[in-house]
């Protein structure tokens, strides 16, 4: 399908079912609004990502980014597919452990690790990715106290040729901070240096940037081996692969501009092969992909509450899912499909959520068929970040369900009730 001069026609047919289970039935059984995840889609996403990388590079390991979506039911599918866990707080670390992930399969990122977090991580043999020198010194204290040799990686930030270089996390590559830190760790001798990590940014639409980052990281790993005599177990390229969502400023639709896993894999693998490692000594490649693996496996089903006309005559449609549930609508133009057959008449609509707040707008402009009160809509690509960043605000949070591969539906997260909220109140 070729895009026209205003991009692709995103809604040719209504979405009547999700993996064969009718949208009407789902909303009847589980209420509205409703988050739906497709188990089948999650499996096929991770499998195609694994296939793309592992047929090009001998040692590949995915680590599920917990912050992207830490519903246990979702995490467990990734772990079942062999993914490790990538966590960024003590809370996420505990969640991963409770999901049965072994400490030696957890990567601990993030700039806010407490001393208690570090103690726990050290005891469990978690890979700790060091973000700053204060953390390094704290960890060295912990190592002494625990009489352990913590497994660590150094977080590196680098110039991958992107217009906006992320330098907030880790140590800079180009100005030598990263090398200083690596030398420091080897010199200290208390920590077990296992790898290096970088995360060049989020929703990166350029595979070239990954090629640059991968090559710089591989060269750094080789240099560590040659000069510091430490063979690094892995290089971790972080996350940032784009999903099929459409960024607000984007001219073309997401599906047309987002590289595939094959494109990313080709760029990364060929870049690492430029660095003269022996085949048997190639470091493991870790990927902390979150968004691209889960976004299109999540749907938000919603119901039209009312229609009205603006002062200028524009059609306003109010639905029961707002920015409290769909945080990502601040930066994406989510694809919206009607969930029932519709007339041939389309009109530009502004789609509002149910909150009594001016900012609660899901789509500023979207061309939709004329919808009536009670009609259903399917909002696509909502799997990443929404069920972690959602808010209990004005309304209660709805059910999250999963359509299983055998067609059964099960609740991943139950709808909130008033008593859930009141239980925490003390006065």
């Amino acid at each position, binding site marked *: 399908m070729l895009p026209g001069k205003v991009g692709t026609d995103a809604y040719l047919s209504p979405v009547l079912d999700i993996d064969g289970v009718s949208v009407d039935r789902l909303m009847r059984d589980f209420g509205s609004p409703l988050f739906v995840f497709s188990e089948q889609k999650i499996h096929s996403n991770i499998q195609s990502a694994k296939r793309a990388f592992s*047929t090009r590079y*001998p040692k590949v390991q995915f680590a599920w980014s917990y912050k992207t979506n830490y519903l246990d039911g979702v995490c467990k599918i990734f772990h079942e597919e062999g993914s490790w866990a990538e966590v960024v707080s003590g809370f996420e670390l505990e969640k991963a452990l409770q999901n049965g992930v072994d400490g030696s*399969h957890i990567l601990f990122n993030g700039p806010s690790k407490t001393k208690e977090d570090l103690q726990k991580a050290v005891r469990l043999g978690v890979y700790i990715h060091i973000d700053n020198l204060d953390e390094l010194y704290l960890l060295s204290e912990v190592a002494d106290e625990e009489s352990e040799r913590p497994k660590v990686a150094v977080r590196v930030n680098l110039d991958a040729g992107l217009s906006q270089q992320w330098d907030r996390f880790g140590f800079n590559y180009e100005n030598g901070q990263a090398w200083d830190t690596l030398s420091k760790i080897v010199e200290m001798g208390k920590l077990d240096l296992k790898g290096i990590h970088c995360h060049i940014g989020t929703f990166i639409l350029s595979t070239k940037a990954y090629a640059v980052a991968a090559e710089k990281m591989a060269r750094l790993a080789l240099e560590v081996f040659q000069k510091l005599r430490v063979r690094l177990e892995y290089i971790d390229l972080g996350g940032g692969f784009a999903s099929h969502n459409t960024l607000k400023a984007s001219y073309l639709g997401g599906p047309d501009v987002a590289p595939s896993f094959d494109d990313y894999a080709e760029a990364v693998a060929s870049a690492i092969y430029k660095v003269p490692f*022996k*085949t048997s000594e190639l470091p493991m490649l870790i990927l902390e992909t979150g968004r691209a693996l889960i976004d299109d496996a999540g749907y938000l089903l919603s119901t039209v509450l009312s229609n009205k006309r603006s002062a200028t005559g524009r059609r306003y449609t109010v639905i029961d899912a707002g920015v409290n549930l769909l945080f990502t609508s601040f930066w994406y133009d989510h694809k919206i499909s009607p969930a029932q057959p519709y007339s041939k008449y389309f009109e530009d609509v502004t789609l509002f959520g149910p909150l009594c707040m001016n900012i609660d707008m899901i789509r500023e402009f979207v061309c939709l068929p004329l919808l009536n009160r009670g009609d259903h809509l399917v909002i696509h690509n909502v799997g990443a970040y929404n069920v972690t960043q959602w808010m209990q605000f004005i309304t209660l949070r709805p059910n999250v369900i999963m359509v299983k591969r055998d067609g059964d539906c099960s609740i991943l997260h139950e709808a909130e009730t008033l008593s859930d909220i009141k239980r925490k109140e003390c006065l």
Partner: protein
Amino acid sequence: MKHVWQSYLSPLLKGIVLSYSSILFSQSLWFGVVLMLVTLLCPIIGLYGLASCVIANLGACALLKDKAKVSSGIFGFNAVFTGLAFGLFCPSRIEIFFAVTILVLLLTIWMEGESERLHVPFFVFPFLVCLWTLFLVQQQGGDLIAFNIEFEASQSLFGDFLDDENWAFVPDVFASFFKSLGLIIFQSNIFGGLLLAVALLCFSRIAFLYSFMGFSFGYLLYATDGWESYGVPFSYYGFNFILTSIAVGCYYVLPSKKSIAWTLALVPIQFFVVLASMRFFSFFFLPAFSFPFCAVSALFVYVLGREKSKLAPDLAGYYKGASPEETLYVYERNRRGVPLSCGMNVGLPFMGRWTVSQGVEGEHTHKGLWRYAWDFIVQDERGTQYKGSGSMLTDYYCFRKPVVATASGLVVAIMDDVEDNRLGEVDNVHNWGNYVVLKHAEGLYSAVCHLEKGSLTSKVGDWVEKGDILALCGNSGYSPFPHLHFQFQTSPIMGSPTLDFRLSSFVSNEGEVVPYGRPKLGDSVSNLLPDEELLACYTFPIGKEIRLTSDRYGQERWTVSMDAFGGTFFETAKAKAWFLQDGTRFRFLRYEGDKQCALYHFYLSNYHVPFLKDGVLSDLLSLTEMKRGVLKFFQDLVSPFFVFIRIPYEVRVKESMVQSSCHLSLFSKGRDAVRYDTMIKRQQISAIDVKEGNKTWKILFLS
């Protein structure tokens, strides 16, 4: 002092005892001692034998550098025969005794060297030459050698007891058998033979079976049929049947139904050779002795050494166990799983998981001389091999995926300029398309074909390591859609006959590790990428000391050592366990010594461990590890025909734990299993939990 013991005394003593064992193709120390004692039933004869054996082994120690060979007794057994014969025929003239003994040693050293070159055993030819020399000198006249040809029982310590008339109740076939057996070591009495027969049965059921079978068949055919007319009793030459049966039935050849058939078939041939040599040597007034056995056995072993068909029995080959049982059981085990000592690690020629779309003896093109080949494609979870509509080459998942070297080798032939076909079209002219042929060893080449034009990264003469990228998968040659063709072949010429070669290991479908196997049609397979933690856990550098304690056996200390052949093993005061670690898995090879120790349970529990988390693997333990008993006795007896006892071993590698079990299976019915949980902590084995029925106990690794 220790040096003298290790370098000289120990090989010398061992060599002396094993010189006796070697007479009946054994490497068992106690059996050698028993044989020595039986020769001493007639002390004069026995002492001459022993003296000759000691002198020969001393001489070999002094002359030769290879003390390991001396200690195997290979330079002594001909001297034992010579000494015994000297004691029997002319127990006098010490200087002649020395001369004869040294002569037999020199002849043995020469013939041993030649036999290595010709791949034919030298048996007792040195002894025969020596003895004939002695006889010829005697015929020359003079009083240098006075022969005393009478067999005198009075030489014996036991007097009348050894008299055959006391043994008249023994049926003639057995009496003859015992007598023949005794005559091998110059004991011309039934009692000595009987002792020998019991010892032989204890040493090896198989050897006993073959010896009696060969002898009684000969007896049945010829002994009753007027053998007496040849002037000597059947038993005087009957030992030839015994020795030939053991040698070519179960020592040089693997015991099997085929070897039994051949052993029986050789009996009439043996008979003719016996008669002919009796006559032939009588021209020179010489006895034929064991010449018929040597001639027939050497002939047959030489014939089997040629490239043989499937009908011929298998030679026992490089590894010969201490007994035919051990040789057979170890062979059966090795056939199923250990790369041979060349240690070549052979993997799949790609990365990630691919699926076999045409296997060995496939339905399309893998036929005839080219039947040992595989076609591989990449499939998604739905079993489709392309994305989208599949109307372009780039839609195919395998297209332009890296193809890697299956093992280290030399690039010997390439083709890089055949156009890739459009989908559905084939190139009949350049069948193989673009290809790379690697040479891994003499006569072992691997080829990958249908590569993308211009994608080759190496040129002829390059050395590549296992896993190095050779090219990208393409669609050139006889290939209607992108796929990878892979085969082992016999020459560098693309398209030469394919070889039935197995991969060191690969992972099939869901985590099942296949050691030493061939992928089958429809299997989705990937290389075994070793888990770093397990690899570290199961790396035992030479010299490493492991201390441990167990509920059952108390403290133990193991050291990791290496033998002269580069084999690595754990050693305790009482036992040794050989192992192999090829970077993808740990495998025990064999166990020797006392089984009442934690090392034995370590052997059973960690017999075969793949370095793959969530990996599963099944294997069979060798029957050599089974404790002795009635069951084992019967199994040994029938082992050339069939094996009814098996010891299946199963292992499942989990996070920080290796779960394994083994059990005795009789006629495919399982019996009580022993379960082991090997705990792994901080890249080390920390403990093993053993569950035997209701009993549980623990082995704890210290340090």
